[in-house]
């Protein structure tokens, strides 16, 4: 069976007044039905990667190198009608802010039905009944009435459920979720996470879950890829990352977690800020903030070490499991 997703040596550069090397030599693969958390702080290139997967980056200002295949389709070469069929049909996306990602002047039912009509070629009435079914599946109470509501008439959690219903209506093989719980209340966040996990099992699709919250990543995904400065610095199963995170950045993220911190104790944080990415990185991007950095880290790109199958770490010191120093 072909891999669900295969990204090879993807580099993305934004041109304009300021050049930004947003993604630098990223490779990533996913099997059918896998859930992957893309973990990293703001500006690490998570969202840019997702947008590249949907061909949503403005072509005039972006320079994309490398290859992206979804179910064997060469995504970067798609255009016109083929790109429209692929977007929302093969791969779809749940956005961070459901309040902004839904059109305010159309009913939610119409917005779901619109996508169904386009992809399945159904009549308006049939598409509306699919929309109704989808609202039921995302556990929206009295879906029949909600179908004719406008986005502003729904709560934040309801809107995100609608967004999920919209994304899943055409049964995509891969769902991209761009921090889908960040804009929501804490209690609603958990509900949405559980919903996504259930729907993933129900529909059997692959999910890429972008988040900066390691707790969320653990909750939802089988595998984790940690991004820093437009690169994947570590990848592995969620268990491996939690138990045996080898990259100093991963360790920093784990240590910065708020759980198990006693009151009054100082919170652990990673010192410094991520680089501006105006030039292509020539050495380890994390070295300036890394407590273990040595001269070699600043001289050359770090080697990618593969301790086991589908597990890799881009760090000089990752050869052996790191003992606490």
């Amino acid at each position, binding site marked *: 069976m072909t891999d669900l997703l295969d990204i090879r040596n993807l580099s993305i550069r934004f041109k304009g007044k300021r050049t930004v090397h947003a993604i630098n030599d990223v490779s990533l693969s996913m099997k059918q039905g896998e859930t992957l958390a893309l973990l990293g702080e703001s500006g690490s290139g998570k969202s840019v990667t997702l947008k590249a997967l*949907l061909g949503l980056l403005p072509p005039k200002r972006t320079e994309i190198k490398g290859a992206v295949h979804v179910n064997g389709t060469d995504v970067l070469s798609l255009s016109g009608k083929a790109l429209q*069929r692929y977007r*929302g049909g093969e791969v779809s996306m749940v*956005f961070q802010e459901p309040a*902004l990602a839904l*059109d305010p*002047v159309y009913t939610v039912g119409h917005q779901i039905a619109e996508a169904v009509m*386009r992809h399945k070629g159904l009549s308006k009435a049939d598409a509306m009944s699919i929309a109704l079914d989808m609202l039921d599946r995302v556990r929206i109470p009295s879906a029949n009435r909600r179908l004719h509501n*406008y986005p502003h008439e729904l709560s934040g959690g309801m809107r995100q459920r609608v967004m999920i219903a919209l994304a899943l209506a*055409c049964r995509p093989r891969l769902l991209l979720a761009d921090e889908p719980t960040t804009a929501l209340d804490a209690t609603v966040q958990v509900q949405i996470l559980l919903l996504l996990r259930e729907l993933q099992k129900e529909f059997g699709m692959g999910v890429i879950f972008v988040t900066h919250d390691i707790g969320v990543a653990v909750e939802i995904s089988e595998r984790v890829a940690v991004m820093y400065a437009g690169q994947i610095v570590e990848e592995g199963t969620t268990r491996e990352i939690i138990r045996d995170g080898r990259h100093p950045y991963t360790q920093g993220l784990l240590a910065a977690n708020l759980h198990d911190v006693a009151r009054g104790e100082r919170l652990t944080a990673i010192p410094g800020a991520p680089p501006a990415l105006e030039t292509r990185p020539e050495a380890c991007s994390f070295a300036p903030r890394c407590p273990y950095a040595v001269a070699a880290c600043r001289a050359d790109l770090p080697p990618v070490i593969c301790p086991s199958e589908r597990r890799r770490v881009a760090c000089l010191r990752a050869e052996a499991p790191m003992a606490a120093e």
Partner: protein
Amino acid sequence: MLTYLLRRLILVLPVAFGVSVICFLLVQIAPGDPLTAIMPVDATAEEQSAMRAAYGLDKPLPVQYAIWIGNLVQGDMGKSIATGRPVAAEVFGAVQNSLLLAVSAAVIAFPIGIFLGFLAGYFRDIWIDRAVTAVSIAGVSVPNYWLGIVLVIIFSVNLGWLPSMGAGPGGSSEWQWNWLHMRHLILPAVTLAVVPIGIVARTVRALAGDILTQDFVQALYAKGMSRADVLRHVARNAAATALSVMGLQLGYLLGGSILIETVFNWPGSGFLLSNAIFQRDLPLLQGTILVLALFFVAMNLIVDVAQAAIDPRIQRT
């Protein structure tokens, strides 16, 4: 929706009352005595006060207002001091002509303005946008009476293609739908359309440009919508605001075309108004202003209701 409509209609009543008071008082503030215009220079004081009494101008203002409004609701707007003809007939004839001119200008201006605005908003910050912006700034800034005169010089005087004056052959003010009459409409309507083209284009450009940067546009592309679909969504989002601007513009076209009607000798309300002002013809002046103002109120009502019908976020209860 029906209760909303009713509520809006009821709210119109106090506005209309306020408008009528202002129309009545404004004219009183204006300097000059209407009687001097029609009385012979050597009229005696008795003759003057007799005339004053005949027009009811000797009574206190509140009484004058009460009489005026009382007659008004019965459809009687009084008689013109200058011509002696009923004001209602004069005003409605003129307003009809003005409406014809205003609607023609709107029919020219709105589609062009919307199209240019959309184009500029979509192709923001490249030459198309700059060209449209230049055109709309020019449209808003050029004094349209000057433009009218220039067009007359070019198309009437030099080329001789179109007539320069009046609403019909031989100075007739009775409108008919035939080429002989429509030729007279072209120059004033085009001249009048220039300002609203600029204003509508600028409004639509700002709206479209703003809406296109919103997240939901990317979300629409992400679910596989075509460019035409996305533009349809953008248009629906822009419609409510664009409509209110166009409604107001139509009001301005009707009431604000005094200069153009004067340049082209168009027998409309602006023309009537300027004559009434120069002749201190109080009943005619009051009547004309009132009808124009009420038209504005009606325009606002229509725009509000249409907006509520298009944009679900506007309260309808």
